């Protein structure tokens, strides 16, 4: 029970992406990164959010990070490598949010799922720049990123797989969890691409229902979805 924390406590490590745009964030200005590498990652995120990955140049990324191009090459060999670092920071943060959600509801797997989905949707709703980077731009950043994105579902799968204990259907295929993450990711990408990230938190009830159905069946999944809807701010 060493790393347990309520989901409202600020126990997540800082994201090296500078101050957050809204007042509801969990990262204090003190947590803003100071290292060059982190500034470069933040610079990449800013330039990509504005111009897209394909149009972003290393010169612009270095300028946004207030470092020279030479410093960029001390840390990264290519734009793709810098993007991969930024992607992994977001990915690790997602993992931390899920770990915190699990810790906040010990022994209550469905609430862990609700809480994890709420935290992830809330995070991307507050950070449209990172939602764009993670969901819309990562496929453009080359084969390494495309493969990395497919690992997200595999690496996050254990959080969901715990739900198999609840299910009578113990012999679900191994791909169930990665596919659920893929479907959720595709739904989020759809929303971000067509309507922007602001409305992501409104997806919580449908996401809760969708993820819980294979484990709990439709009726119980809908009950949790309805509860999640009532708890929406």
């Amino acid at each position, binding site marked *: 029970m060493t790393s347990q924390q309520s989901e409202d406590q600020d126990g997540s490590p800082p994201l090296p992406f500078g101050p957050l745009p809204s007042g509801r964030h969990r990262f204090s200005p003190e947590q803003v990164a100071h290292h060059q590498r982190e500034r470069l990652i933040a610079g990449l995120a800013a330039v990509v959010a504005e111009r897209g990955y394909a149009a972003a140049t290393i010169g612009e990324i270095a300028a946004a990070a207030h470092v020279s191009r030479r410093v960029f090459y001390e840390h990264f060999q290519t734009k793709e490598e810098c993007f991969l670092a930024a992607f992994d920071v977001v990915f690790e943060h997602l993992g931390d949010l899920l770990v915190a959600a699990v810790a906040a509801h010990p022994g209550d797997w469905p609430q862990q799922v609700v809480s994890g989905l709420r935290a992830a949707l809330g995070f991307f709703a507050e950070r449209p720049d990172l939602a764009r980077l993670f969901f819309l731009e990562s496929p453009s950043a080359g084969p390494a990123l495309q493969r990395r994105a497919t690992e997200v579902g595999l690496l996050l799968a254990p959080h969901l797989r715990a739900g198999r204990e609840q299910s009578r259907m113990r012999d679900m295929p191994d791909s169930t969890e990665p596919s659920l993450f893929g479907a959720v990711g595709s*739904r989020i990408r759809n929303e971000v691409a067509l309507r922007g990230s602001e409305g992501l938190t409104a997806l919580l009830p449908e996401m809760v229902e969708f993820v819980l159905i294979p484990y709990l069946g439709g009726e119980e999944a809908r009950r949790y979805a309805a509860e999640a809807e009532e708890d929406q701010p």
Partner: protein
Amino acid sequence: MNPLQPLPGHAERTPPGESPVPRDAAAADRRRRILAATGELVAKRGYHATTLELIVRRARVGYPAFYKCFADKEAVFLALFDGAAARTAATVGAAVAARAERPWPERVAAALDALFDSIAASPLPARTCLVEILTAGPAAVARYEAALRAIGIPILQPGRDLNPRAAELSGALEETLAGGVAWMAYQRLVAGEADRIPSLLPEALEFVLMPYLGEEETARAVSALS
């Protein structure tokens, strides 16, 4: 090259129907060559590394001819995607129509089977539709999402008739499931394992049937596959 093809500017002066190669046939041929060249280049190099210069050279057309057909590289690529998406929809639709009298789970299985087979049979065009399309900017992503819905919803939605609480299912369920199936194929395509995609059929079927049928009926439908 047809030696009787009208010189540039000549066709415009020839009344329709009298030219040995009608102007719209020549234009259609150029359009087809541009699309084919773009498809080959994108499959080989990716969307962003495919330049307009490479396209016109490979298609053996001039820039003016290119711009008569398409506004820019994105426009060709979207036309290429639309054609492939329409062919996929037709292939999948035909597989479903051939089993119009069969129960819904069988029709879904036939649709997934046809889809996965067509991807495995031509992995390069499939990469264009499932991987490269997502790299080509917001218009392309919107086009992709629309195609997912256009193909997925008509196949999956009848499942609601089998679910007594269908009205309570989320309205976005079909597109979410379609996104999940596309993701299964995407994972294999970027890993260079297109040949393994047809073997995903049982798990993909289970994945899409479950929300409509529940576990018991889903298990029955999946075991009926073999």
